[in-house]
C-alpha cells in the first residue's frame, strides 16, 4: 500500500539528509508504529507519505514514494486527499470549520462528493467513531479525546486507504487514549485501512502494531515485526524492557502476553522483599493548601481541595482531562483567577504577595513552556532570569548546565528540542530558588531516554529539598518519579496516598510492570532489576 524506494530527504540548508536511502513496504490493512527518539525524522517520514514533504515543507526528496500506486512526486497532498488521511498532533490546529458535522463534511466537499453521498457518509462516520451525540457541537467545546476522534473522522469521510496519525494519544488521559485507540483498531480490523502511527507513549500502541518502523537516528528506517525490532531499539515501552531483562523471546508487547510468561519471574520476586518506598514521610510541610476553589464564570474547576507538599517530596497530580489539574496548579502559584481557600508556603500566601516574591516561593512551569521564552538566545534568557530573580550572574546558566549539559548558549530557544526547552524554562524558574516547583504536563513530547533523564533531574531536585508537584497523564513516568499520587476528579481529590497504593489498584493508572506482576506491588523495571541483583 505504501512503498518507499531509496528515499532520501534533505531540507534546504541542512548539512545531512533527514532520511537516507529508505526502502520499505507497508502492506494493506497493517497498523504500523513509527518509533524513534525526538528529532530523528518521524514527522518527515509521516509527511512524505502524503506528499506534504516536500510539496508543503520544501526540501528535496530523492527516490520514490508510492501510495496506492500513486507517486507523491507528481501528486501533491491535495490530490492525494482521497487516498491518504492525515491527522496532526494538535487536532484543534487542523480544524477548518466550526462544528463537528461541518468538519466531517469538509474533505468531501473539496473532493466534490455528491450531496446525498455526503449526508450518508457523515452519518456512518459519526456512528463508526461513536461521536453521534456531538454532531452539532462547536469544535472548541469538545474534550481532547473527542477532538481527536472528530479529527480522525474528518479525514475518514473521504474514504482514504491510508490513515497517518502523528501522536494521536500524547495529550490524552489514559481513558480517552483508549477510546481513540479502540476507534483506530476498529478501522484496521473492520475496514482494512492501513494505519501509520507515530507515538512517544508506545506502551499505549505497541500491542496493536503489526509492523514497527524504527528510526535509529542516522537517517535509516528499520522495519519488521515489533517483537524483533524492539530487541535493540533505544526507545521501548516498559513491558519490552521487562521482557529484555527477563530474557523472554519473542518479546511480549501486551500485558496478556507478558503475564503468561511472568510466572517464574513472579515466583523469584516473591522471595525478595520490595525495597522500601522512596516516599519516606517528610518531616516538614513546605506548602499547605486548604479549601482551594477556582471558578471560571459559573463553572467550578476546583472545589475545596486540601493539599500539602513536604520538603523533598515528588507528588503526581493525576485525573482525566478537564478535572482541574492545571487550574489547581495556577491557583497554588497564586497567578490563577480569583479563588477561594488559603495557600501557605513557608508562612506566606503566593497570591497575596508581589509576583517577584511569589516566584521565589513557588515556581510554575506551564503546559506550553515556550510561553515564558521571548529572547533570541539561551544565554540572553539565562541573563534575564538572573536579573529577574536578583540572583548572582551565571546562576541560571549553571542550573541549565546541571539539568541538561551541553546546550549551546547561542542557540535560539525555539530551535531547542522539547527536552532542552523544558530544562531551560525549569532553570529559569529555579533561578529564584523556590522551595516548591509545579510542573504542568512536563513529559509531553519527551521520548523515553529524555524522560529517564528528566526523572533523574526531578529526583536530584527533590533530594536537595525542593517539593515537586507535577500534573500528568503519564502513568509510567509517575511510577518512576512520584513518592505520592493525588487523583483529582471533577475538581475534588478522590485519592491521595503513596504511589504504589494509589496506582496499583487502579485499572487506568496502573503502570505496565504493575499489571504484569500483580498482585505483587512492583512499579518499574528498575525496581525489579535492583531487587534481583
Amino acid at each position, binding site marked *: 500500500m505504501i512503498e518507499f524506494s531509496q528515499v532520501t530527504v534533505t531540507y534546504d540548508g541542512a548539512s545531512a539528509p533527514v532520511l537516507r536511502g529508505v526502502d520499505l513496504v507497508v502492506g494493506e490493512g497493517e497498523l504500523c508504529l513509527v518509533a524513534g527518539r525526538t528529532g530523528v525524522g518521524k514527522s518527515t517520514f509521516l509527511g512524505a507519505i502524503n506528499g506534504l514533504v516536500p510539496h508543503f515543507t520544501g526540501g528535496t526528496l530523492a527516490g520514490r514514494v508510492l501510495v496506492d500506486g500513486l507517486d507523491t512526486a507528481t501528486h501533491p497532498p491535495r*490530490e492525494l*486527499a482521497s487516498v491518504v488521511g492525515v491527522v496532526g498532533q494538535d487536532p484543534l*490546529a*487542523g480544524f477548518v470549520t*466550526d462544528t463537528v458535522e461541518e468538519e466531517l463534511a469538509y474533505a468531501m*466537499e473539496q473532493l466534490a462528493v455528491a450531496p446525498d453521498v455526503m449526508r450518508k457518509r457523515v452519518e456512518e462516520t459519526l456512528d463508526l467513531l461513536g461521536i453521534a451525540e456531538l454532531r452539532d457541537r462547536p469544535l472548541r467545546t469538545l474534550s481532547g479525546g473527542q477532538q481527536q476522534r472528530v479529527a480522525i473522522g474528518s479525514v475518514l469521510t473521504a474514504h482514504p486507504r491510508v490513515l497517518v496519525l502523528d501522536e494521536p494519544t500524547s495529550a490524552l488521559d489514559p481513558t480517552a487514549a483508549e477510546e481513540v485507540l479502540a476507534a483506530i483498531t476498529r478501522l484496521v480490523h473492520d475496514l482494512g485501512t492501513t494505519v501509520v502511527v507515530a507515538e512517544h507513549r508506545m506502551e499505549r500502541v505497541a500491542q496493536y502494531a503489526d509492523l514497527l518502523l524504527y528510526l535509529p537516528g542516522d537517517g535509516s528506517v528499520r522495519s519488521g515485526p515489533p517483537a524483533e525490532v524492539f530487541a535493540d531499539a533505544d526507545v521501548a515501552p516498559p513491558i519490552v524492557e521487562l521482557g529484555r531483562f527477563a530474557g523472554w523471546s519473542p518479546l511480549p508487547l501486551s500485558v496478556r502476553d507478558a503475564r503468561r510468561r511472568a510466572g517464574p519471574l513472579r515466583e523469584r520476586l516473591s522471595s525478595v522483599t520490595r525495597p522500601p518506598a522512596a516516599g519516606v514521610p517528610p518531616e516538614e510541610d513546605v506548602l499547605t493548601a486548604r479549601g482551594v476553589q477556582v471558578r471560571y464564570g459559573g463553572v467550578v474547576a476546583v472545589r475545596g481541595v486540601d493539599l500539602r507538599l513536604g520538603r523533598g517530596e515528588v507528588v503526581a497530580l493525576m485525573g482525566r482531562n478537564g478535572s482541574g489539574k492545571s487550574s489547581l496548579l495556577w491557583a497554588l502559584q497564586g497567578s490563577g483567577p480569583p479563588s477561594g481557600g488559603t495557600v501557605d508556603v513557608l508562612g506566606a500566601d503566593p497570591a497575596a504577595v508581589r509576583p517577584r516574591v511569589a*516566584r521565589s516561593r513557588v515556581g510554575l512551569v506551564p503546559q506550553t513552556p515556550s510561553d515564558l521564552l521571548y529572547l533570541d538566545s539561551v544565554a540572553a534568557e539565562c541573563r534575564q532570569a538572573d536579573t*529577574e530573580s536578583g540572583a548572582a550572574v551565571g546562576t541560571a546558566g549553571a542550573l541549565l548546565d546541571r539539568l541538561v549539559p551541553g546546550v549551546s548558549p547561542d542557540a535560539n530557544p525555539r530551535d531547542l528540542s522539547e527536552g532542552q526547552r523544558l530544562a531551560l524554562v525549569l532553570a529559569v524558574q529555579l533561578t529564584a530558588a523556590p522551595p516548591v516547583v509545579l510542573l504542568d504536563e512536563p513529559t509531553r513530547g519527551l521520548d523515553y531516554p529524555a524522560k529517564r533523564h528528566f526523572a533523574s533531574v526531578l529526583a536530584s531536585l527533590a533530594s536537595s529539598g525542593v517539593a515537586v508537584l507535577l500534573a500528568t497523564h503519564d502513568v509510567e513516568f509517575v511510577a518512576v518519579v512520584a513518592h505520592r499520587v493525588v487523583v483529582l476528579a471533577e475538581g475534588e481529590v478522590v485519592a491521595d496516598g503513596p504511589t504504589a497504593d494509589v496506582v496499583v489498584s487502579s485499572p487506568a493508572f496502573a503502570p505496565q510492570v504493575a499489571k504484569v506482576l500483580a498482585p505483587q506491588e512492583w512499579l518499574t523495571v528498575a525496581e525489579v532489576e535492583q531487587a534481583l541483583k
Partner: protein
Amino acid sequence: MLPGNARALHPGAWWVWALALAVAAGRTTNPLLLALVIAVAGFVVVNRRGDAPWALAFRGYALVAGVIVVSRVLFRILIGGEDGGHVLFTLPTIPLPAAAAGIELLGPTSAEELLGGFYDGLRLATIVLCVGAANALANPKRLLKAVPGALAEVSTAVTVALSVAPQLVESVQRVRRARRLRAARGRGLSFVKGVFVPVLADALDRSLLLAAAMDSRGYGRRGYLTPRVRVLIAACVLAGLFGVAVGVYGVLDGSSSWLGVPMLVAGLVVASAGFVLGGRRIQRSTYRPDPWRLPETLVVLCGVASAGLLLACPPAQLVTSVSPPSWPTLPLLPALAVLIAVLPAWLAPRPRPVAEVAR
C-alpha cells in the same frame, strides 16, 4: 416566525442588504438620514444576530466608526485654514516652512468646517457600520464557501486568518498569565517583545499547521494547469476586480460618467471570465448548503429597493447645506426609502442560539 424555523439566513443575502444600505448612505450627507441608516442597521443586527463570536464584531465596528467621526473633525481643526465662514474659535497658528505653503496648521476654525468634517465623517462611519452589520449577521466562513473557485488561494488565506484570530486572543491571555510567572513587569519595548514574540511565533506555527491540514484534505484541488493558463486566469481576475473597484467608485461618485456603469460592467465581465476559467478546474460540492428561500429574496429586495429609491431621489433632498449652516431637515421620501431596509428585522428567520446547538 416560529422558533422551530430558526435557521441562519444565507450570508449572501445579508451582504447584499448591507452593501445596498452602504450605497444608500454613501449618497447623502444629511446627518438625520445617516442617523436613520445607523439606527436601521443597528436595529436589524440586534434583532437578528446569533451569539457566535463573529456576531460580537458589531461593537468593534461601532468603535471604529466613532474614531472616524472624531478624527475627521479633529483634522478639519488641525488643517482647516481660513475660509471666511463663521469663526467659532481661533487657535494659535503653527508656522510651516515655505515648502508647505498654503497649508496652515490650527488657526481659526469656522462652524462650516466643523459641520463639513462631521457630515463627512458620519457618512464614512455609516458605511463602515453597514459593513459591520453584515459581518455581525453572516457567518464569514459560510460566505467563503460561496467564493468562486478561482479565488481558492485568497480564500485559504482568509480562512486561516479567520481561524487563527480567535486563537490569537487566547494565546495573548496565556502568555500574559505566563509572564507573571517570571515576574516580568516590563513596559514599552520589553513588554511588546515579551508578549508578542511568543504570541506571533505561536500564530505562525498554527497558521502553517492549518494550511497544511487544509492542503492534505484536498483544499484547492484541481487538475494541472499550464503556467500560461494560470497567468491568464490571474490577469483576468485582477484586471476585472480592478475594473469593478473603479466602476463602483464611479457609480458612487456620481459625477464622472464614463467611470461609472460602463467600467463596472466591463470589470464584471472580465472578472467573471477569469472565475469561470479558473473555477472550471476546481470541483467542489457543498454539504447541506444554506438554502435560498423566500426570506433571502425578501431581505435582498428590501436592501435593493431602499438603495434604489434613495438614488432616485432628487440630490437636493440628500444634501444638507454647510455654508451657510442650516438646520438639517428630514425629507419624507428618502426617509421612507431608508426605513424599507429595517423590514429584515422581521422578515429574516431568527438564528439558532449556540446554547441550543451546544446541547
